[in-house]
């Protein structure tokens, strides 16, 4: 039974913009991130990585490296537990153990350039780097397949010989297609027969990276009791513990994971890469071992977002209603199965109420790093396709782009194409706010006099958000300040947004609740900071813990006043007697009188939330395109989004702006550029072109608040939605500016010029 809440209008703390608790440490350089960790006796390790995209590893000779002065230990796949055929639960369902282990340290095959073959621990970083050059590996290079078309070709090299593909329930072997799923609603073929306009387009998208500024890192110490301590920058300490224990075939409680500050993740810092290697090297060297990737490693061998192909076909009738829609989604899983294609199915038609739909999805292994989550995984790619086609339909029919979306918008009771029926959602309100926005109502400036063409685009996007498990512990200090211990690592201000929810319940100021992110032995199990879930789920746990704390404080007040606890009332931070108006104490005052009432007042809140309530956003972009060079600049940008309830509006805006800008980078320039030999050519921040401050305007934000009925304060996740619409928003703006519709990402300058030439010839 899911509890529902009536939205409150007035809050004391929620909706304000206090300075975040961890802010001072972060503006002074004091905050300790994973790479800043120092331990007595600590040594450094580095990894040897495959230069080949696909090769059989015939032999690995580490003797030269081992004899280099300063080298303390060497690790290869032979040091990983061998559990052939075993399935292991690494936190995201069960996975083939060999594949999971091989992704950490390759045993028989290198499946992507950058795949770790061996690692060395040495007295300092440079010695470790020099030592790995002395490892001799004999490879037998194989042909590689780095995109969906190559991997599904008849003569494609097969990456995983033990992969059994699942083609709509049929088992397939000798394939790179790991899975093919289908969802069907109504009768799309019949539906299309009723349509007066059908538009079908196929979009090709390149793999992209989350691009967090902090490289992956891990420090591990394997002690005499066979206990392993790990310090790392991660989106989830408990998932690191689960994955590392699973990979090393150890009981979880042997591991203690301490999450350090984390320099961005966006989904990419959920899987482990270095932790098991550092642990093995620590066991072999007896020292704490630290590993930090370089930027090239991060690009080549962590978990980017899949590229692939998305085909979308949408049919409308003359009344402006979408009657039928189909989609075929092919995603690059990377070297092992498990792309975000399942999430993409849920998002592709999520904005619309469509009676007849079919969605086919394909998960395809390719010689690239295993893909991981990236902010609303799968949604930006399918939104690019759907929202481009919707834009084209509106243009062809001469329909207003917001009116059309309003007419077809998903709302409470709509069945999403893959099955679920929506609870209360805020897409209509978000579209209405977009329609009223200053940006949408401002006329597009005339083309500038430098030959550039100006255009405006709009698109919508969706993310379902997740709930999952969170735990919060509270304790009351004598001065009334409450300590809050949580397991959610704080990537973008969640200490503040979680503490504020506890403060709201307790009648305290935001700074009177002091949040601490704890290690795996100091708080109950908490899932990752991901799925836009922390403010929602950990905030919910804080709400429960705060209410439990207030209940305990009521007992203490009753004890002090010598009255029955049922006579104690608590509101707005004040405990009072329901019968004696003389008896009232503020939380802070009561906290100072707890001395002889039975020891520390503590409480706990924990949740496991199945539902989260989805979020929708609508983006508007103005661009200038230079038709001679294809250079595209975003000149104005507005993000409109339903946040349910914005706990700390400044950080909600920050999520909206940051997500939009990642999407703009994805739209225009970011890509894994693969050479013919299957190696990524642009594995630097120089050539993997993320937006700089000079590439962007200010990002305007409009927060819509349609409270989420299943959260005590109405919160919806906000972090992921804003990366869904930008690809299509920019594509639609480019089309408005120069009249060509790009069917690919990135929409590079050269491609725009080429499309214009094709259009003009």
């Amino acid at each position, binding site marked *: 039974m899911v509890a529902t809440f009536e939205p409150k209008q007035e809050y004391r703390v929620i909706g304000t913009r206090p300075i975040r608790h961890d802010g001072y440490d*972060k503006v002074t350089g004091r905050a300790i991130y994973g790479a800043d960790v120092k331990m007595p006796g600590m040594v450094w390790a580095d990894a040897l990585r495959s230069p080949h995209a696909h090769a059989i590893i015939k032999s690995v000779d580490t003797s030269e490296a081992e004899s280099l002065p300063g080298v303390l230990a060497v690790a290869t796949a032979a040091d990983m537990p061998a559990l052939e055929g075993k399935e292991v639960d690494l936190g995201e369902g069960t996975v083939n153990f060999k594949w999971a282990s091989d992704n950490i340290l390759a045993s028989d095959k290198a499946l992507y350039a950058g795949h770790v073959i061996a690692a060395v621990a040495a007295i300092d970083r440079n010695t470790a780097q020099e030592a790995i050059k002395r490892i001799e590996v004999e490879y037998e290079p194989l042909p590689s397949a780095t995109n969906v078309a190559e991997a599904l070709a008849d003569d494609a090299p097969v990456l995983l010989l033990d992969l059994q593909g699942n083609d709509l329930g049929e088992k397939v072997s000798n394939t790179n297609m790991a899975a093919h799923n289908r969802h069907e609603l109504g009768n799309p073929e019949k539906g299309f027969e009723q349509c007066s306009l059908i538009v079908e387009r196929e979009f090709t998208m390149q793999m992209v990276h989350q691009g967090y500024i902090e490289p992956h890192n891990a420090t591990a110490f394997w002690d005499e009791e066979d206990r392993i301590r790990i310090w790392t920058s991660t989106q989830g300490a408990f998932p690191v513990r689960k994955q590392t224990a699973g990979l090393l075939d150890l009981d979880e409680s042997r591991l203690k994971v301490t999450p350090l*500050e984390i320099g961005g993740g966006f989904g990419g810092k959920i899987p482990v890469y270095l932790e098991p290697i550092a642990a093995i090297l620590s066991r072999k060297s007896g020292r704490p071992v630290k590993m930090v990737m370089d930027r090239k490693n991060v690009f080549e061998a962590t978990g980017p977002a899949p590229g692939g192909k998305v085909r979308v076909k949408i049919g409308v009738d003359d009344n402006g209603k979408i009657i039928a829609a189909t989609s075929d989604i092919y995603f690059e899983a990377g070297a092992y199965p498990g792309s975000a294609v399942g999430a993409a199915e849920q998002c592709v038609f999520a904005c619309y109420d469509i009676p007849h739909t079919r969605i086919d999805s394909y998960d395809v292994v390719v010689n690239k790093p295993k893909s991981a989550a990236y902010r609303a995984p799968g949604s930006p790619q399918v939104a690019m396709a759907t929202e481009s086609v919707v834009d084209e339909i509106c243009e062809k029919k001469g329909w207003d782009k917001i009116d059309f979306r309003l007419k077809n918008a998903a709302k409470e009771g709509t069945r999403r194409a893959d099955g679920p029926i929506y609870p209360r959602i805020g897409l209509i309100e978000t579209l209405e706010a977009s329609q009223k926005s200053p940006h949408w109502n401002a006329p597009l400036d005339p083309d500038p006099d430098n030959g550039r063409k100006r255009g405006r685009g709009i698109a919508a996007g969706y993310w379902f958000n997740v709930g999952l498990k969170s735990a919060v512990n509270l304790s009351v200090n004598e001065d009334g300040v409450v300590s809050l211990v949580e397991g959610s690592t704080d990537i973008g201000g969640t200490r503040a947004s979680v503490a504020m929810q506890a403060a709201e319940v307790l009648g305290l100021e935001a700074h009177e609740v002091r949040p601490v992110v704890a290690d795996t032995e100091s708080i109950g199990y908490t899932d990752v900071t991901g799925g836009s879930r922390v403010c929602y789920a950990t905030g919910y746990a804080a709400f429960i813990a705060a209410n439990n704390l207030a209940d305990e404080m009521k007992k203490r007040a009753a004890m002090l006043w010598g009255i029955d606890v049922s006579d104690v009332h608590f509101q707005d931070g004040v405990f009072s007697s329901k019968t004696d108006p003389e008896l009232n104490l503020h939380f802070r005052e009561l906290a100072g009188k707890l001395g002889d009432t039975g020891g520390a007042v503590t409480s706990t809140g924990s949740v496991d939330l199945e539902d989260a309530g989805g979020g929708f956003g609508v983006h508007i972009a103005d661009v200038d395109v230079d038709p001679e060079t294809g250079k595209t600049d975003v000149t104005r940008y507005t993000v409109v989004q339903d946040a349910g309830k914005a706990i700390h509006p400044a950080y909600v805006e920050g999520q909206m702006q*940051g997500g939009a800008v990642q999407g703009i980078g994805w739209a225009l320039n970011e890509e894994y550029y693969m050479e013919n030999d299957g190696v990524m050519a642009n594995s630097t921040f120089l050539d993997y072109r993320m937006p700089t401050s*000079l590439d962007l305007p200010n990002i305007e934000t409009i927060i819509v608040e349609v409270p989420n009925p299943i959260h005590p304060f109405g919160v919806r996740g906000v972090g992921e939605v804003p990366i869904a619409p930008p690809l299509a928003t920019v594509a639609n703006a480019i089309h408005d500016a120069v009249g060509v519709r790009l069917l690919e990402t990135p929409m590079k300058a050269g491609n725009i010029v080429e499309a214009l030439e094709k259009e003009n010839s």
Partner: protein
Amino acid sequence: MTTKTVRNVHVRTTINGQEMEFLVPPYMSLLDALREVVGLTGTKEGCNDGNCGACTVDLDGRIVDSCLVLAPEAEGKEVNTIEGMATPQGLHPLQQAFLEEAALQCGICTPGFLVAAKGLLDNEPDPDEHRIRHWLAGNLCRCTGYDKIVRAVEKAAKA
């Protein structure tokens, strides 16, 4: 050919107003020397090739990527890092503005942005938005979309 075949170099320099001496391998970057030898880990490594600005420090009055400075080059120079920005009297107006304007999310790029922005305001007290965006183009931020960073610098300039 171990890494010990070259002798360490003695470097005397002033860091955040404090004269100090240290020994480093001659090939060590100023970034690594600050982080690993001096113990100032506020300066961050993001790319180690001069494209993200996370390691920005002030070297004799100019902002530089400390990953592209060899530690021995700091001999006789003045290095100012994020750790030297606040004084016992309080935060620098830029630090205060970053907090008030929510100009940081994960915070890893924040030291580099603050040192870079200080380099701007020290010489140009009233830059416009375009100048701020131009000056900060060597610093990548992946979380904020830059909006709140630019506004914070504007606010600090007016403070």
